[in-house]
Each structure stands twice: as structure tokens, then as C-alpha cells.
């Protein structure tokens, strides 16, 4: 872990300086090393036709911050996925080119390398395909298919860069999606105080330690052992399990969530279990952003879980009055949740808007 951290920080430092300082320096090319702690595991697939390269990631990053990829030239991916907020936008629902609110809350873009089914309802199986969905959505970026590619074909340095990345200067929507996917794969967050605690490099305060215990432990049936059992779904080093659950927001879900993808009644009101990484930065919460603060979220799981036929079995006892966290327990859990904030991730210059620091020879 220590060695890995060193490699990661060193990489960021060298990459950051050489990429943006050297005026005559060429764009770095070649494979982009994806560094992550061993505990994150290698269960991910990068499409054989879209390997992660330095030039591809750079192009994807330009596109991620590119406002020309919207009908009114005002909205980029980064409008609703802002780095300082761990790539969310602070809104209950987002507003794109139409000004109409979107259906669901903008998701944090973190550790997507490992995510197998994207969106709140898991309807997309690849970052390449996912990236194009907001581009075409009338209430997000509002482009017609091909419109974005056509616009960028006229703008330097895009044709040059596409040639470098894909071997052809013809810009297509599919290549736009591929480049953005490459950039998204690099958005790895693994340097929160909690990560450092796991690596034996951070000492928990008494409150944080109590919070971790409540987070990790299931309550006993008799109520003597206290616990929130949060880790059952939000556990592991990546702080999520790839599951779709109904977490008891409503007795009758207005938004079917996963059911709209599978058509199965047992999926009614199920949504993906989001990562808790950087959770203190990603308010408001839930698929529709209905809960404004983390305190509201803890109150929900403690006191307001609604019964329904598809309520997650782990929450049935909470709904029946089993959890009922005390105010000091909630305080401890909050203290723990704040340990999950990775400030080096939200300040990483390699993830920032590159358009203000365009390499001169590409301008």
C-alpha cells in the first residue's frame, strides 16, 4: 500500500508537471498505467478496442470539459460532474440544455473502472456506451447523433488528437464515447483518511472508531449489540457492493428504477447501491436527491425506512423499528463518513479542466 501510494503520488507529480509546464514538450503517449491498491482487486474489463492510453485519456479529458458537446454550447459533462464535488453537481436534479430537471440525481464519477452496470438503474454495461447517453438526452446535452462529432471536426486540436488516438482524424460519436471512457477509467479515488487507516497510516479518533464499528456491525436481534450494518451493502475497500436494492424510501416507488430495465416485479424501486467514497461532498442524496444532508440519510435508515414488497431484506428489521440509532450514534457515524473524503482526488490536477492550460502547440 505504501509503495503503491508513493507510485501514485509520484506519477501525479511527474505527469502534472510534464504535461502542463513543458511548452515544447510533445503530448505524452503510450499506455496509461492505472494504479490502485491491491485490495480494490482486478475485477474489471477494458475493451480490447479501447485500451487506456495517455493520449486517449488526454483527449477524453478535453471532451469531458467540452461545452461544444451540447445543443446550446453551454453544457459539458463537467457541468453536472464537478471535480470539487467528487464529480457531482450539488443539485437535487440536474438541469441541462432544456432547463428542465433531469429524472435522477447526478452520480459521482469515482472508481468507475470497477463498475459493471452503470447509471442508477444499471442499464449500461460499458463506459463507452454510457458516455453517449447524456450527450443525446434532450434534457441533458441535447445533441442529435453525429452532431457533436460534426462540430468538433472543425475545431483544433480535435482532428489531430483523434488521429493520434484512433489512427484517423475522422471524429465519430463512438470515438467520443471511447475517449471519454478512457478518461473516466482514470478517476481512481484511493487516498481518503479511511484508506490510510486501512493501510495502518491513520489513527482513528474515539468517535470515528465508534462510527466504524456501527458502520461495520449488524445489530443483534435483542438490540444489545448496536450496529447499522451499513457495510453489508456499502462495505469493502471500494465502499460499495455492486447491488440493486430498494432502500425503503417509499411504500410505492414513483420511479421503478431497476424494474424499468429488467421488467421484473421483484426489481420495483431498486436502485444501485452507490459508493460512499467522498460521500460528504456529494449532497444531496438518493436517486432523486430528496435527502439534503448526511444527517437526513442517517435519519432515514434509522427511523424512516418504508415497508414495501421489494424492500431489501437487510432493511426489513430497520423498518420494523430495529435500528433506531441514538443521536450520539448518529454523530459517530457522521464522523466516520467524513473519513471517506479523498481531498487529493478532488484536487488532482490530472482530472481538472484542461482547456485553460491547453498545450500551446495544439492551440
Amino acid at each position: 500500500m505504501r509503495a503503491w501510494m508513493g507510485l501514485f503520488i509520484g506519477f501525479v507529480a511527474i505527469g502534472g508537471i510534464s504535461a502542463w509546464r513543458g511548452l515544447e514538450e510533445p503530448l505524452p503517449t503510450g499506455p496509461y498505467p492505472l494504479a490502485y491498491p491491491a485490495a480494490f482487486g482486478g475485477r474489471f474489463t477494458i475493451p480490447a478496442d479501447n485500451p487506456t492510453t495517455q493520449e486517449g485519456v488526454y483527449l477524453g479529458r478535453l471532451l469531458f470539459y467540452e461545452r461544444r458537446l451540447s445543443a446550446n454550447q453551454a453544457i459539458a459533462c463537467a457541468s453536472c460532474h464537478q471535480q470539487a464535488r467528487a464529480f457531482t453537481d450539488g443539485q437535487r436534479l440536474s438541469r441541462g440544455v432544456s432547463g428542465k430537471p433531469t429524472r435522477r440525481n447526478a452520480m459521482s464519477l469515482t472508481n468507475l473502472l470497477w463498475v459493471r452496470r452503470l447509471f442508477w438503474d444499471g442499464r449500461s454495461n460499458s463506459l463507452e456506451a454510457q458516455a453517449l447517453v447524456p450527450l443525446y438526452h434532450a434534457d441533458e446535452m441535447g445533441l442529435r447523433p453525429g452532431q457533436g462529432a460534426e462540430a468538433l471536426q472543425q475545431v483544433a486540436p480535435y482532428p489531430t488528437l483523434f488521429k493520434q488516438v484512433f489512427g484517423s482524424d475522422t471524429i465519430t460519436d463512438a470515438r467520443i464515447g471511447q475517449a471519454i471512457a478512457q478518461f473516466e477509467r482514470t478517476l481512481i479515488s484511493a487516498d481518503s483518511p479511511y484508506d490510510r487507516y486501512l493501510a495502518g497510516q491513520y489513527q482513528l479518533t474515539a468517535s470515528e472508531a465508534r462510527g466504524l464499528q456501527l458502520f461495520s456491525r449488524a445489530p443483534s436481534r435483542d438490540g444489545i449489540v448496536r450496529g447499522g450494518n451499513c457495510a453489508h451493502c456499502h462495505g469493502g475497500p471500494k465502499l460499495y457492493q455492486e447491488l440493486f436494492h430498494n432502500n425503503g424510501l417509499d411504500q410505492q416507488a414513483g420511479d421503478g428504477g431497476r424494474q424499468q430495465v429488467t421488467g421484473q416485479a421483484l426489481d420495483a424501486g431498486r436502485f444501485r447501491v452507490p459508493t460512499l467514497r467522498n460521500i460528504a461532498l456529494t449532497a444531496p442524496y438518493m436517486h432523486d436527491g430528496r435527502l439534503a444532508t448526511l444527517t437526513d440519510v442517517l435519519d432515514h435508515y434509522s427511523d424512516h425506512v418504508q415497508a414495501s414488497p421489494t424492500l431489501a431484506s437487510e432493511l426489513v428489521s430497520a423498518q420494523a423499528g430495529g435500528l433506531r440509532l441514538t443521536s450520539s450514534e448518529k454523530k459517530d457515524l457522521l464522523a466516520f463518513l467524513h473519513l471517506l473524503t479523498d481531498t487529493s482526488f478532488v484536487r488532482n490536477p490530472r482530472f481538472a479542466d484542461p482547456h485553460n492550460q491547453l498545450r500551446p502547440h495544439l492551440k
Partner: protein
Amino acid sequence: MAHRSYLNGAYRSQPSSRISRTLLRGLSGWAFLLLTLSGQAQTLTISGEVAKPLTLQAADLKAMTHSTLTARDRDGKDHQYTGVPLVDLLKQAGVTLGGELRGENLTKYVLVKAADGYEVLFALPEIDPEFATRTIILADAVDGAPLPQGVGPYRLVVPGEKKPARWIREIKSIEVRFAR
């Protein structure tokens, strides 16, 4: 319909009895009611390294020979689970079991997937009775009733394991793969 019984994971053969047949007929009635209520039938697919990929409807599974075993769930209590031995399902799909489970076929594994995204894995010898001393079943009933919503229509019951973490619920697919 032949009916077999397993007690605490130990297998003992039992002739087909009228009682069990009546019981199973009763269960299928319940299963039908449940499917009607939920509006759609949940199918089970078996795919991957198989001679014959299968998409099984509720009626297909209902028609297969069922076994009953007693095993302890997370609630700490013993329950009677009824279902189709997993090995029978895999044999129907033409998976390399029995005499064929040797050589490179020993590097095959079975990935069982649930509707909510949960997944668990078994090596083929854990399922093959020529290797394993216990029988894993794809249960569709517990204590004489269909599995409740959130558990059913199908759940694996793995007798003899200290944690029921591989008793995966809401099973929708079984994939057989080669380790690479």
C-alpha cells in the same frame, strides 16, 4: 415423480410417496398464484461452457425431480428445503460432470447470479456427487411453502456450510466458465 430426501445434508433415498406428490402439487398451485401476482415469470438461464444452453420456465423446473433436505438458515433454525439438485440442472445443460470431470474440466467454475446483482461461485467438484458428500439444491420451497418475495422464486441451499453466504436468493442465471 420420484422423491428423494436429504437430512442435514446426508442423502438417503426414499420411494416416491403420495404425500410428497400431493405436497408438490399444492406447491405448484402456490407458485402459479405467486407468478400471477408478480405479473411476470422469472426464468432461469444456464449458459456458458454447456452443450445445451437452457432457458427454464417455472413449469420446466416444476416438472423436474425434487428433493427435500433439512438445513439451518441465518435465523439459526432448521428448515425443510425442497428443490432440484443443482447437479441435475447442470447435467440437463450438458455440463462436463461425472466421468468427464477430469483434466482441464477441473478448471471450470459455476457463477450463480441473482436479480439484485449478487453473485457466488462454485467449482464443479463441489456440485458433482462423485466428488461432493453433500447435495446443493436449487430450492423453490421452504417448509412446504413457496419461497417468499425477496428470496424466491429460486434460492440455492448449500448444506453443511457454516455461513449461508452462498445461499444466493432470487437466482436468475447460472453460467459455467473456464478459469483463464
